[in-house]
């Protein structure tokens, strides 16, 4: 070929060759994920904007639901079952457990529905599909902040004052998000393949609300403690209580280590399964 007749001024800069072959998509995956980070931001921003724009009740929803749940769980576990509170006002105990649960469940179900909900994008545009469940996490995070800001005066009213431990809360928020991502990756990839997983998600969440110590404390249940620690959210809930409720709360280190281990497995296998099925998404969605 002779000298190009068209001046290739700026073209040369980005003229790298992209090769498309079966099974080749993996090569640039993580680099692409970084390149598409702005899209991640935009998708999250779109979902947040739409969520708080569409309904006047947008913010109210984020509040009413946990308020009712707190009252309900306080009544069931605190009043009916008379579970021990260890000197902490029972509503506070529930609220501190509900915050991470709320974060997890909205991130998890958001991620689970995200691919099917964005199927029009998946079938028309290339981007690392991981962006979609990741953006669902961002939405859940914003909901959590709304909830945190609103819970603050309530906790003060109950005579619970924040301590330096509050500074460690972001660690447990991140922890909850990683669990939600690991579980969410599984469920989202399965939902694309088998549509009836949409109906399984709420069912799992219902079980999860009780399998996670949202309405009760684990430190007064010595026989169940190990078993409950198999649920990685137990570590997160204990962490949230430890950060928010101050003294008298036990972090239960061995349980926490268990939570971290299980989370690592969940995230690892979740990524593996998601990446394995991802290339077929556009064909089956």
């Amino acid at each position: 070929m002779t000298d190009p007749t068209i001046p290739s001024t700026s073209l040369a800069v980005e003229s790298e060759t992209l090769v498309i072959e079966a099974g080749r998509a993996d090569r640039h995956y993580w680099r692409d994920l970084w390149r598409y980070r702005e899209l991640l931001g935009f998708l999250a921003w779109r979902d947040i904007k739409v969520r708080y724009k569409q309904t006047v009740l947008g913010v109210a929803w984020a509040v009413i639901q946990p308020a009712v749940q707190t009252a309900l769980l306080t009544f069931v576990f605190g009043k009916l079952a008379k579970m021990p509170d260890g000197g902490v006002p029972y509503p506070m105990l529930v609220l501190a457990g509900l915050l991470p649960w709320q974060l997890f469940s909205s991130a998890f179900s958001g991620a689970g529905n995200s691919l099917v909900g964005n199927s029009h994008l998946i079938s028309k545009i290339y981007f690392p599909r991981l962006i979609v469940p990741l953006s669902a996490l961002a939405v859940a995070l914003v909901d959590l902040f709304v909830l945190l800001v609103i819970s603050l005066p309530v906790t003060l009213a109950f005579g619970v004052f924040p301590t330096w431990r509050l500074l460690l809360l972001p660690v447990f928020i991140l922890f909850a998000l990683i669990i939600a991502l690991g579980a969410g990756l599984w469920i989202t990839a399965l939902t694309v393949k088998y549509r009836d997983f949409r109906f399984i998600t709420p069912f799992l969440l219902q079980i999860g609300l009780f399998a996670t110590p949202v309405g009760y404390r684990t430190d007064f249940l010595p026989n169940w403690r190990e078993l409950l620690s198999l649920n990685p959210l137990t570590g997160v809930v204990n962490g949230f209580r430890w950060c928010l409720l101050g003294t008298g709360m036990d972090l239960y280190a061995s349980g926490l280590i268990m939570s971290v281990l299980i989370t690592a497995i969940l995230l690892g296998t979740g990524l593996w399964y998601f990446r394995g099925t991802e290339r077929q998404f556009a064909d089956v969605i």
Partner: protein
Amino acid sequence: MPNTVIAVDGLSKRYRLGHAARHDTLRDALAHRLSAPWRWLRRSRTTEAAAEKPQDQGPAVGGPWSRGPSPEDFWALRDVSFEVQRGEVLGVIGRNGAGKSTLLKILSRITEPTTGRVALRGRVASLLEVGTGFHSELSGRENVFLNGAILGMSRTEIRRKFDEIVAFAEVERFLDTPVKHYSSGMYVRLAFAVAAHLEPEILIVDEVLAVGDVQFQQKCLGKMQAVSRDEGRTVLFVSHQTDAVRALCDRCLWLSEGHITRDGDVHGVIRAYMDSGAALAPAAVVGARGTRLTASTATPTADGAGLSLVLEFESASVLHAPHIGLVIRDSDRRPVLGTNTQMHAPVQSASPSQRQRVTVLIPFLPLHGDDYHVSVYLGDHDEHLLTVDEAVQFRWTPPRPVLHRPPLKDIGPVNTTIEWKFLTP
């Protein structure tokens, strides 16, 4: 070869329709797996009987757990090779199901090829749809940013071109209005404007000009021409409108049944395409859940005033509440009449089935004489399964000829009983 921007070599894509379609739910997948050994036993005992039953064509038998080579494997592309040089505008034509969309999807990295290789030099932007990711609740301004990001522009890039995009779309006054209040024309203009301001080295465009008014289409074509001619960008353009392809492209690729039938000078290829009649032949499209939909030729009713059609669908799984519709379009692809079994409830209601014939009768078709196309579609409950564009085409001759008829593009296709009277002064 520094000038080759796109090199496609031996590209093939296989879809596994049977499996993908059948196990849409975990319940079905489990049921299928669990019953597999039993089915295999039963089938091997009565092989002849099973072979005679046409609706029992499951995957070929290779053992109790084997999936085996399925007769429903479908090669959307088969060994396609071509090269595109920098600054070239390549048109791709072919009837529905020829593999055009699959080719574009592979080039845009939406789906992976089964075999073969593609090398692309430079940034690729693909426009397979106008307004991908537009959200109706968001304002025009917000959608420009969102859509730009989806198409691969950076935030700073969008900000830099924002005014230009808005001016091109002619929607300055409605920037802060949610796009759900936009007219369809405004919506398309804004969406195309974003896409037109992408600056990729390779632009892949599918069928997007089919929407929007003629004037704006011209503007878009002009913009795309400028992009290729003046800025040395490479464009891959797929369209049904052979006129648009002819106007824009130098070279044309004709795909049929996944193969390249012809590749060469745009005029020669389009002439051959039109002459072959392929442009008019009914398409073999397979939709979700392995559905197919065919339509008989449209026959005029006995009195010549109406039209009847027979449609037939078959599906890999039972459709519980099948519904069928059709849209008649004029020769410019403008819809003139649409009907479906939900708008106009059928005389006899649909029963759950895998295969059914449906007749539709339009006793009086108020249209001027012209060539028309019928697109048909099939759904189940609220799920859309497939659309066959231009499944049938027919030339309509109204029973009562019209005397002096202006061109249809000026008066529209409707031809109904009309009485004029000059009143005495």
